[in-house]
């Protein structure tokens, strides 16, 4: 079963938090929802979790007991140990092989050595790992993680992504939101939101291939075309693919694709 939303509209008062969003999430696949603060990422995940009713559109999601959800704040029981936190959710969801499952989830991470520590005393990265492991304990069909890596360093981020990959390898449909574009490269599908609307949607390769025209690299700002900085050099976008004098064709990355999409939206 493929989960997702179609023509989704959510309003808070008169503000549209989401204005016409479509998304499919197949089992075993990972969707990265990227965007700035207040782009609508959290609202989309809340709708998929069943915590917010849409004003318009359709939502396909499993019954709540087969959803795993970690909201922005890592929700762990701060007075319980790591092991007790995991045991508690395992009991609540009637997980049979709880010891084995816990060992599997903790795997080779530092959290495995911290089983007897009280969750309130864990570092931010460890606490977030625990929250994700708790949400995965009952093998949900749909796993929703709202910015699980925000504020975390690369070492913790890689361990969170190991859990995300394990969920997908186990057949779950996974939706992960992030403010960091580099994480989108890991996903099979990227949904870039901007101000409640879809800016880009597709596989990372498709998004790179679908940039209209050509993106160039130049040593100085070029007149008459949209330019942005990349380190000491500049990127310039030629919408019709016309060659730009004094500029080399750049190999486009997701950041370029997103900037071009945002420029096109602004011009529209």
């Amino acid at each position, binding site marked *: 079963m493929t989960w997702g939303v179609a023509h989704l509209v959510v309003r808070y008062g008169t503000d549209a938090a989401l204005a016409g969003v479509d998304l499919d999430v197949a089992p075993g696949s990972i969707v990265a929802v990227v965007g700035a603060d207040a782009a609508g990422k959290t609202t989309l995940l809340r709708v998929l979790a069943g915590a917010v009713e849409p004003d318009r559109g359709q939502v396909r999601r499993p019954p709540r007991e087969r959803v795993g959800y970690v909201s922005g704040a890592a929700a762990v029981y701060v007075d319980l140990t790591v092991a007790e936190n995991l045991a508690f959710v395992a009991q609540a969801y009637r997980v049979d092989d709880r010891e084995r499952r816990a060992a599997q989830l903790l795997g080779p991470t530092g959290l495995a050595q911290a089983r007897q520590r009280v969750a309130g005393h864990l570092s931010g990265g460890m606490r977030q790992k625990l929250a994700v492991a708790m949400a995965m304990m009952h093998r949900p069909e749909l796993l929703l993680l709202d910015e699980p890596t925000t504020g975390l360093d*690369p070492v913790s981020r890689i361990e969170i992504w190991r859990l995300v990959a394990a969920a997908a390898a186990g057949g779950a449909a996974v939706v992960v939101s992030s403010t960091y574009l580099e994480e989108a490269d890991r996903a099979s599908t990227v949904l870039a939101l901007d101000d409640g609307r879809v800016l880009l949607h597709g596989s990372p390769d498709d998004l790179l291939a679908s940039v209209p025209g050509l993106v160039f690299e130049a040593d100085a700002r070029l007149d008459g075309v949209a330019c942005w900085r990349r380190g000491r050099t500049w990127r310039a976008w030629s919408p019709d693919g016309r060659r730009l004098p004094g500029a080399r064709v750049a190999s486009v990355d997701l*950041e370029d694709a997103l900037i071009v999409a945002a420029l096109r939206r602004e011009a529209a």
Partner: protein
Amino acid sequence: MSAFAVARGVTRRFGKVLALREAHLSVGPGEVVGLVGANGAGKTTLIRVLLGLISPTAGAVSLFGTSPSIATRARIGYVPQGLGLHPDLTVAENLAFVAAAYRARSPRLAGDLASFRDRRVADLPLGVQRRVAFALAAGHQPELLILDEPTSGVGPLGRVQLWDGIRRAADAGAGVLVSTHHMSEAEQCDRLVALAAGRVVAQGTVQEIVGAARVVRVRSDRWEDAFHGLDRAGFRLGLVGRSLRVVQASADAVRAALASAGIPAQIDEVPASFEEAFVLLASDR
């Protein structure tokens, strides 16, 4: 021209904890230097030392050729992670307040930022707040700018505007130190200084730092089985699209593990990503 900020063999101890061990760093005029490192690697301690808020246990810091002092502080612009704005004041009031503290004139707001002059900071989107914080820190034309994840949480065009401002300051001769652990910010820097456990473990461009690091890539039609097999065997694993990435392992070890599990796969060594290189740097010290 000599560097604006230099740390020479800086060690800083907090009780029993060595937060910095003989760290070296220099930021010259017109240069954008990225300071990267895991949480707890010593980035914040090094910034505090450079700001003159704490002094090193051993080693020396020089700012503009002298020791950190109130006088050198006035030549630095600093944007912390929390931005340091007064949320209840308007943009113009924030500007006037900071300018008075530096005994400088209130900076002019460029482009569309001017239209937010009379709005309360708390009512503005994060992208605009970040640009205001940068304008504030750069307003007294400091020679050294220290920025902590200056574009985090900002949309694509907001990031473009922020980097334009940062590069303009550098082109005008300022030295810029950007503390970050994000690829998108690191690759905007001229060079990076990587800290792990208080030590400088690598220096260079993103390409130079990532360049040598390798991970093992595994492609298989049975990627799920390959994942479970390697995960159970204790390998550090990631997934990019449908291919697995194994950090800190040899291709032979991965090949052996998959063969013994009877999982057919294509295995090769590929350049590490920024994050993966980081994990390698942080672990082989």
